[in-house]
């Protein structure tokens, strides 16, 4: 089969790889019909995740058609169109049984800090991802879901990660009626977090980024107040000012380790790899939230450590909520919101690339070319 493979920082190509096989009775093989490049794939593309081996196939946002099933999978049939949540999860371990599907203990031998994730390095279990023609899906008796009536393929694709993760971020912000939510990052997660914050009853949603075209989009899609932080001498002072010098009730870091805005953080995290990426968004989130407020970390960071103002966290009495999104728990409610038109995930798709041109897709997404917000990959056999 054809699959995207990682060749080193900023380099990917499409190669022939052996077709995946059933390796466990609960496995399924899915023929991928659509995959997306996620903002967190960019962290991989930049080589920021440890144990990212040459030849690994990325892609944790994908939908497809069931091609082959292990003997224990009785909830799916060959030919079913399924969406596959990005968490590889068993549904029965200590954590899954409590609904924490992003923290499954049975799918990632390489680390206990994180559950298995498709196409997200050997630190996340070493599973090849969905930016390929076929993909192996473990625990197919639990993870994948048939795409329900009334949900388009494009919507289903974004319900595998981006939309539930943004919605999850807004939930973790623990929003009360009329509260102010400050979101760092106007990428897909920030966009869905802004939209979801209104559903949770926010009174004010402010989004900051350095890209005007994304701020423009989110100002309409959210809607949201937007501000370009490159325009501000000191973003933290500014956010205090526009919140009556109190600070936002909740701040969401929807950026992660590839942030912009601080030369020191960029040098330490990005160029010298002396910390797990650039933590400027987290730094700003902690400093601009009000005392007693909530900071949500939904952006992805590498595992080692980061420079962040822990002292302020303590002194301000801030509550931190963070976790990988347990997609399966969000899906029933999100299906309702999509059917009722309260969230329209597919509207953020701006580009489509054939699998063969995936290197171009990564370049356009990572360099923010051509107003790119969400690129979708269509494999050669999608229509087979």
């Amino acid at each position, binding site marked *: 089969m054809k699959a995207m493979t990682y060749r*080193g920082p900023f380099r990917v190509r499409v190669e022939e790889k052996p077709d995946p096989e059933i390796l*466990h009775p*609960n*496995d399924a093989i899915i023929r991928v019909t659509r995959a997306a490049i996620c903002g967190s794939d960019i962290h991989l593309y930049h080589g920021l995740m440890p*144990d*990212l*081996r*040459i030849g*690994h*196939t990325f892609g944790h946002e994908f939908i497809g058609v069931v091609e082959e099933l292990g003997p224990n999978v009785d909830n799916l049939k060959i030919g079913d169109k399924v969406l596959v949540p990005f968490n*590889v999860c*068993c549904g029965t*371990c*200590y954590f899954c*049984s409590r*609904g*924490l599907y992003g923290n499954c203990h*049975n*799918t*990632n*031998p*390489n*680390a*206990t800090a994180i559950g298995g994730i498709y196409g997200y390095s*050997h*630190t996340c*279990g070493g599973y090849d991802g969905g930016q390929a023609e076929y993909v192996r899906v*473990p*625990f197919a008796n639990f993870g994948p879901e048939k795409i329900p009536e009334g949900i388009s393929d494009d919507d289903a694709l974004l319900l595998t990660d981006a939309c539930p993760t943004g919605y999850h971020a807004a939930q*973790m912000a623990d929003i009360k*009626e009329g509260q102010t939510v400050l979101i760092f990052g106007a990428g897909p997660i920030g966009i869905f977090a802004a939209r979801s914050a*209104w*559903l*949770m*009853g*926010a*009174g004010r*949603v402010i989004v900051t980024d350095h890209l005007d075209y994304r*701020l423009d989009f989110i*100002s309409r899609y*959210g809607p*949201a107040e*937007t*501000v370009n932080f*490159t325009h501000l001498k*000191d973003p933290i002072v500014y956010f205090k000012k526009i919140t009556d010098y109190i600070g936002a009730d909740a701040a969401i870091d929807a950026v992660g380790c590839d942030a912009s805005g601080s030369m020191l953080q960029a040098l330490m995290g990005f160029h010298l790899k002396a910390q797990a990426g650039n933590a400027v968004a987290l730094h700003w989130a902690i400093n601009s939230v009000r005392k007693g407020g909530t900071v949500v970390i939904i952006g992805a960071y*590498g595992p*080692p450590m980061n420079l962040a103002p822990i002292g302020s966290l303590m002194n301000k009495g801030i509550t931190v909520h963070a976790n990988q999104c347990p997609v399966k728990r*969000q899906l*029933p*409610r999100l299906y309702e*919101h999509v059917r*009722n*038109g*309260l*969230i329209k995930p597919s509207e953020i798709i701006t580009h489509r690339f054939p699998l063969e041109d995936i*290197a171009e897709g990564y*370049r*356009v997404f990572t*360099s923010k070319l051509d107003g790119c917000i969400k690129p979708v990959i269509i494999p050669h056999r999608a229509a087979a």
Partner: protein
Amino acid sequence: MTANPYPEERKWYESPKSAKRALGDDPAPAPSHSNRNVPPNYRDIRGWGADLDPANRPMFPKELPSDVTTARGEVRDWQTPTMKIHMSVEHPNLTPVFGTSCPPKGLSGLLRDYAYQFGEGSNRHWMTLVLADRVDMIESMVSDAFRGRGDNYIAEKAWSANWKYADDAQRRRYATIAAAAVGGIVAAMLLRKVFIRR
């Protein structure tokens, strides 16, 4: 009547540096600050408050009740390893399923063997893995070259997309840089000839 605190948004580069705000007591929003699409009453936003009641939020409560008391729960079937699988020392045994994307190999594999001797709280674990990734890159480059499938940096980095998807202003910038680079090279060659003749 107070002035509109949110003037029409301008591109950040259109604003003079003096417009940067942070210090002082001027409460006016930054020129790039816009709320033009937000209704005056937030309750008018489509879907507002649909999940205001925590009972409507799927993650309420965060943890669901469960009787499972062991880390793995009940596991009936185990995937059989057919290649070397690295395992965190914080796991009691191999997980029931695991990925088989890229088996460890060469010097990078030895570095990974070393890294996985340490726990996840250890910098030696993570930083050795980062080092192994870079070594893996060089090893793969060399082995692919020997197999006649050398890396095509231009295609893999897709530099051409920078031109293909650039807007006119970006293209002008690239063209100017390219012209300056070519001009510099030509000038250097001419100067070299002049000096050699002397």
